[in-house]
């Protein structure tokens, strides 16, 4: 692959194949599916943040009108500990099962305790009220400080901290510790002309997808089961649900619906095992749909974090040493993304002397779920705030300061391996030259700069390419299309096969139709599944060459694929017209049967993604309200297959990050009840809060992908937190270190300025 590639369709902006269905309301999402005889399920959730379950009585509920089945934790098998595969690091099946339905103890307000299936939702809800649960309430642990306190109540009495040099001798709420380091920290700080040292805090936030979780489960008397659901990964739902229910993977078929947003939050299961067990007990299909309140109380969230950061700088702005102590809330079960957080925190920079400590801490909140670049936004909020403060104090332009420390190809990342070609420097240079950065600021406006980073992942993907008898193309793959990926797959297939984009249809298939494919997540779909589609298309090309050679009675190495057709190689003495895909499709029956290409792979070479964001913000000095006046997202995409959807990723991630920075947070009562479990008071940005989000796509091709693609889905949410905070700090004239930058907090800071 090279930069000089001459693309025919890649890089164009055609209409997505599923577009008309989605603008006309025809597309079928999670709650849109139904089956004859279907029951409606509902979940009884814990009214306490932390309590022992002493008894559960379900007789009255089971006897209620219309009720066909009731399940509790006692109906589920005990699931042994074991790592969940598929790239969702830190997960354990036993914890997953414990989160799906409580056994013995409830660990957060909203934790599922029982579920009911009835003929109507009203009947199911009425029956929930008849389930008698006797609780012994326990004190709720709601903050990192409270969780790590000497005599903190234990959320998991058996939890021994892992990752310590000396094995833990007593249980605690500290699930694990990770440490990284290099060089001589003391010497590095001794060399510093400036040391920035602060504590940075970020709140618990939710992914905020608009479509609540929903599924329909149907269990047969032969123990074969089917699930229709909205998910980022049907195969992951299959393996997780099978494990929670103690069933063989092959007995479960998962059919993904269209998905109304996920952002990482739909990479796990909540309702699916409940629906299937209710179906097994009732002998009827069962539909379960969460309310928005349930989505807030029982799914997501992203970890709150406290990061103590110390960075040393020489007079000319070189980082001499850096130290971070990072505590992330895991929620009620281990598994916050503090691991990747520790790897991201200083990833954009060359730092010889550093120490990083990460802590995964249990609190009585919902089990943290992945949210776009899990762990990175919190980490880089801290670092990029400190970089901004350093630039200010050293009198160095903030982009220049970053350029002086930026990692480049060949540098070892602080977490070890060497970087290949990366776009950090190109993004920084583009930012410095961007009109947003060069134009004068309006009165009172603060301007913030921040860098974003995410690893991007590869993982397993499969694809099939079917050539129809008229030469049109059907691509079969297994990644739910969460943001236009069918269009990207069709573009890559069309490019490889040399056919028009419009002749390619892309099918997102179920777990019995598509080959195994990991989640739509980790910024991997266009990269890894795209690679599988390209490979499967190349498989078709090889078959076409072979068949053309047979037709021409020559050897395969006498022919070549060029411009969408098989040609005799130059100089080969064959009298023949080139054979196009369409020609060969028509002759398929006579040349060996249908043309079917396939590929399955474990993708390598996911190039890391870097970004730079610029934000102009104006603080109302009397009320503390922040207005984002301008925002620019610049990011290295490797190669933008469909630039509009790449821009869309940048814009959407920017706005989620703006929300995280400004107004989003879980508000808890002292008893551990979330007080703002709805879109009215959990304030995601609305259209009138925002300016247009300007974008600039940088293309430093990724050598690990045939067309140079690197993932773009997650990096966009990383930089906005600090970009906004730096702009607000500049406008307010006071350094803001705790998110969200809600009006009361900003006003309080203004008072102290």
């Amino acid at each position, binding site marked *: 692959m090279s930069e000089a590639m001459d693309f025919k369709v890649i890089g164009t902006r055609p209409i997505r194949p599923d577009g008309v269905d989605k603008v006309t309301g025809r597309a079928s999402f999670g709650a849109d599916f139904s089956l004859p005889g279907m029951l409606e399920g509902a979940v009884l959730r814990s009214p306490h943040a932390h309590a022992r379950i002493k008894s559960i009585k379900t007789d009255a509920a089971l006897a209620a009108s219309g009720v066909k089945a009731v399940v509790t934790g006692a109906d589920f098998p005990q699931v042994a500990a074991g790592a969940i595969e598929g790239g969702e690091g830190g997960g354990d099946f036993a914890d997953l099962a414990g989160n799906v339905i409580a056994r013995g103890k409830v660990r957060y307000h909203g934790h599922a305790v029982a579920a009911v299936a009835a003929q109507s939702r009203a009947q199911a809800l009425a029956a929930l009220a008849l389930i008698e649960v006797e609780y012994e309430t326990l004190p709720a642990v709601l903050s990192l400080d409270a969780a790590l306190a000497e005599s903190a109540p234990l959320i998991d009495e058996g939890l021994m901290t892992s990752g310590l040099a000396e094995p833990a001798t007593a249980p605690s709420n500290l699930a694990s510790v990770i440490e990284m380091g290099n060089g001589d920290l003391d010497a590095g700080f001794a060399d510093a002309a400036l040391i920035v040292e602060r504590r940075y805090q970020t709140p618990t936030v939710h992914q905020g997808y608009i479509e609540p979780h929903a599924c329909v489960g149907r269990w047969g008397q032969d123990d074969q089961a089917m699930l229709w659901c909205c998910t980022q990964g049907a195969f992951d739902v299959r393996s997780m649900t099978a494990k929670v229910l103690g069933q063989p993977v092959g007995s479960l078929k998962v059919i993904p619906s269209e998905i109304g947003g996920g952002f990482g939050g739909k990479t796990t299961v909540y309702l699916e095992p409940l629906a299937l067990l209710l179906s097994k007990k009732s002998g009827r299909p069962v539909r379960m749909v969460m309310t928005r309140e349930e989505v807030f109380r029982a799914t997501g969230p992203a970890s709150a974090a406290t990061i103590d950061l110390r960075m040393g700088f020489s007079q000319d702005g070189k980082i001499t040493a850096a130290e971070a102590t990072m505590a992330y809330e895991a929620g009620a079960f281990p598994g916050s993304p503090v691991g990747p957080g520790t790897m991201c925190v200083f990833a954009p920079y060359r730092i010889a002397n550093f120490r990083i400590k990460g802590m995964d801490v249990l609190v009585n909140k919902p089990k943290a779920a992945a949210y776009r670049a899990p762990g990175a936004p919190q980490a880089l909020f801290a670092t990029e705030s400190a970089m901004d403060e350093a630039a200010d104090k050293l009198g160095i332009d903030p982009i220049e300061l970053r350029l002086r420390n930026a990692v480049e190809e060949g540098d070892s990342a602080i977490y070890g391996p060497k970087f290949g070609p990366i776009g950090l420097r190109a993004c920084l240079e583009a930012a410095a030259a961007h009109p947003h950065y060069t134009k004068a600021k309006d009165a009172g406006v603060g301007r913030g700069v921040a860098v974003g980073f995410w690893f991007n992942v590869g993982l397993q993907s499969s694809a099939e390419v079917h050539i129809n008898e008229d030469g049109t193309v059907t691509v079969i793959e297994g990644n739910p299309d969460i943001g236009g990926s069918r269009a990207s797959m069709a573009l890559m297939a069309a490019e490889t096969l040399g056919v028009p984009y419009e002749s390619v249809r892309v099918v997102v298939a179920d777990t019995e139709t598509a080959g195994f494919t990991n989640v739509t997540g980790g910024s991997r779909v266009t990269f890894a599944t795209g690679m599988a589609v390209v490979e499967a298309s190349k498989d078709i090309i090889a078959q076409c060459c072979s068949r053309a050679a047979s037709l021409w009675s020559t050897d395969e190495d006498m022919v070549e694929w060029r411009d969408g057709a098989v040609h005799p190689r130059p100089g080969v003495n064959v009298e023949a017209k080139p054979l196009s895909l369409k020609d060969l499709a028509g002759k398929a029956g006579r040349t060996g049967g249908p043309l079917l290409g396939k590929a399955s792979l474990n993708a390598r070479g996911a190039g890391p993604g870097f970004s730079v964001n610029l934000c102009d913000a104006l603080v109302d000095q009397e009320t503390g309200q922040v207005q984002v006046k301008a925002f620019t997202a610049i990011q290295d995409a490797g190669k933008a297959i469909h630039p509009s959807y790449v821009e869309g990723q940048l814009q959407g991630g920017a706005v989620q990050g703006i929300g995280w920075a400004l107004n989003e947070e879980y508000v808890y009562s002292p008893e551990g009840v979330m007080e703002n479990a709805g879109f009215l008071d959990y304030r995601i940005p609305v259209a009138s809060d*925002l300016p247009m989000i300007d974008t600039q796509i940088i293309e430093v091709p990724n050598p690990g992908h045939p067309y140079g693609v690197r993932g773009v889905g997650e990096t966009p949410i990383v930089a906005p937190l600090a970009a906004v905070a730096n702009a607000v700090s500049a406008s307010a004239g006071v350094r803001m270190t705790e998110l969200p930058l809600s009006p009361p907090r900003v006003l309080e800071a203004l008072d102290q300025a």
Partner: protein
Amino acid sequence: MKVHVQTEVNGEAVEFLCDPTATLLDVLRDNLGLRGSKEGCGTGDCGACSVELDGALACSCLILAAETQGRSVATIEGVATPEALHPLQSHLLKSAGLQCGVCTPGIVVAAKHLLEEDPNPTEEAVRYFLAGNLCRCTGYDKIIRAVLDAAAEMRGEAA
């Protein structure tokens, strides 16, 4: 006791029996099979269930189905003709103004109402009018552009 309702949906006479507690959204989706209107919140905060009732824009999750007796309901399913998409729909596709697409039906219904009231809205007017249509994927940028472009096309200007 069920309520018997006769009403009009997308210009067609319909009748149904429903529980008095059923919302218009419930009936559209479960009784009439019109599932283009989505329930994102059930409390009128997200706009994914937007419909018009006697020409007024509304959240169908906050209307009792019984209230629609003798009225006229317009949903996303009635926006395109058999021959063509509405300009808003075409421009949303052209501008990539949707990612997951679950908020899109509500946005089309609301924006269509806006352009019927004000064929030449400013960007600010579009943003404020659509503030009740939450979108978590796009950052709104391409949605707003699509609405402005569709408005221009509908006014006969080159978009």
